[in-house]
């Protein structure tokens, strides 16, 4: 009995020791976690504040897609501990590079190289020059035009816990696809997509004209002219029907249209529409495209120039658009908004067979112009 009690007290003494060790370990771990957390979030800023020389404290990035144009953009942000000035330039050789000189901040705790996947950027090198000047060397896959990048600074905002920042926006470059187009319309495979149809009337004019009726009528006229010139034409719909099936989901309907072009290995896809807006005085023709290759903008430009010839409609120009059919076709594609059906004057004109014939002829001329230009770019 006595023995057991002694044994017990020894045991409990051992347990208390173990408990004490546990508590000490836990305390140690807790303290180290707090240290690590603190170091990650606040310490560089504090360090900079203490030493007095401003520096970069963090770098982050994200990709987003422009809701209206569909253009993907990479935003690269450097946090800085003080106000900075930046100046940027693009050079072509030895390889495409965006150089950003930073006045007011050293490299600080930011890594000297950051590797990227090459979609927007290949590599970023951060070179600290003096205590408070540095250079960001951004290696890019292709040379950027003026509208394809932006470099700017942002002030700090203590209320929102935001430091001073250097922001670099880079648009996704147009993929360097090369087509071997020959001049002329002969033997070209053209898919024509009369917008809307069947259960979807599209836009409706003030006097009740349906967009789907006008688009089908014009597409039919384009088909005849193209076939006369020796092209092979495939229409996504021949009459007033849904292309997928009645009341199909939106994407099923749109992908049924792009599939016609993709499955037939078409050279060009043209979607024909009429535009609309609440302000009924707005009018004019516009051409939308997605920059899958440089040929898409060339196609849009060729069509738009041709559409203005002998035209009753103002020219609104060409636009990159976040549009399903131009994005999801594998070949150069354009969506033509011939005029505004919501504008009573243009609605009337759109109903005229003579005006429709002129638009059709302009579309064919635009296609012809496209193949001439595309062949010159590096076809056979």
């Amino acid at each position, binding site marked *: 009995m006595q023995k057991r009690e002694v044994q017990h007290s020894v045991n409990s003494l051992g347990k208390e020791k173990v408990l004490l060790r546990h508590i000490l370990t836990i305390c140690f771990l807790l303290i180290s976690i707090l240290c690590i957390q603190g170091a990650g979030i606040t310490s560089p800023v504090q360090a900079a504040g203490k030493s007095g020389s401003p520096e970069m404290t963090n770098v982050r990035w994200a990709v987003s*897609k422009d809701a209206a144009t569909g253009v993907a953009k990479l935003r690269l942000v450097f946090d800085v501990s003080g106000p900075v000035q930046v100046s940027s330039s693009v050079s072509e050789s030895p390889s495409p590079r965006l150089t950003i000189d930073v006045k007011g901040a050293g490299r600080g705790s930011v890594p000297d190289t950051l590797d990227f996947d090459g979609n927007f950027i290949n590599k970023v090198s951060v070179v600290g020059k003096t205590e408070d000047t540095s250079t960001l060397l951004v290696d890019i896959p292709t040379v950027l035009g003026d509208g394809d990048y932006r470099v700017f600074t942002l002030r700090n905002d203590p209320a929102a816990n935001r430091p001073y920042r250097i922001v670099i926006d880079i648009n996704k470059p147009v993929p360097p696809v090369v087509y071997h187009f020959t001049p002329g319309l002969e033997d070209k495979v053209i898919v024509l997509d009369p917008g809307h149809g069947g259960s979807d009337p599209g836009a409706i004019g003030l006097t009740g004209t349906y967009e789907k009726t006008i688009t089908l009528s014009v597409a039919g006229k384009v088909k005849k002219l193209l076939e006369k010139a020796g092209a092979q034409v495939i229409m996504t719909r021949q009459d007033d029907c849904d292309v997928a099936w009645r009341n199909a989901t939106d994407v099923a309907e*749109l992908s049924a249209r792009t599939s016609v072009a993709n499955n037939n290995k078409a050279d060009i896809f043209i979607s024909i529409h009429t535009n*609309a807006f609440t302000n009924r005085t707005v009018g004019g023709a516009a051409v939308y495209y997605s920059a899958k290759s440089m040929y898409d903008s060339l196609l849009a430009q060729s069509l738009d120039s041709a559409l203005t010839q002998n035209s009753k409609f103002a020219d609104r120009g060409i636009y990159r658009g976040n549009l399903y059919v131009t994005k999801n076709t594998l070949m150069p594609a354009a969506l033509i908004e011939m005029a505004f059906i919501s504008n009573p004057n243009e609605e009337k004109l759109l109903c005229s067979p003579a005006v429709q014939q002129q638009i059709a002829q302009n579309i064919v001329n635009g296609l012809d112009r496209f193949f001439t230009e595309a062949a010159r770019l590096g076809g056979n």
Partner: protein
Amino acid sequence: MMRMRLKVLPWLLWFVLSSFLLVACSSDTNKNNNTPADTTKPPEQTADTGKTPGNAGSKQVVVYFPTRDAMFLMPETRKVSAGQDPVRSSMEMLIVGPESRELEAIVPQGTVLRNITIKDHVAYVDFSNAIIKKNPGGSTTELLLVGAIANTLTEFPDISGVRILVEGKQVETLTGHADLTGVLGRSEEMIKKHK
């Protein structure tokens, strides 16, 4: 009883510690993965979003509307009275239309804001089906509408992108032109640049 407590206590402490560790780690990774690179706009386009302008308890929001010629979007700075959710209010103001005569309403009349939630910096904005049924159609209207929604909501620092829902369901397009699959980001290109 005492022995029980002694036995259990270390495990209890370990449990507390490990859960603390877990929470600390997961909140940290969340931060790294989901914080948008910065939704803040270039300086010439910023308006003091959601900030209290000192005097009143009211806040300012920025709502985007198309120009009368349907070429661009332009920001309009509006006041939200105290106690109202600025994000929700900004969408309701977008529905009602602009104060300026130089700008046009873009959300079809009769459209109701059903709901708006924010998750992982993406705003899920749910409209009634009038946004489709009463829509005039046309690529221009659809792209201006989508751009106005995305630009108004991404004015808020916590929102980096938008998904559009109609009657509770995510939509792939509104009127058969725009591709609304995936998160929609801000459209700088559509904003009319001031000189």
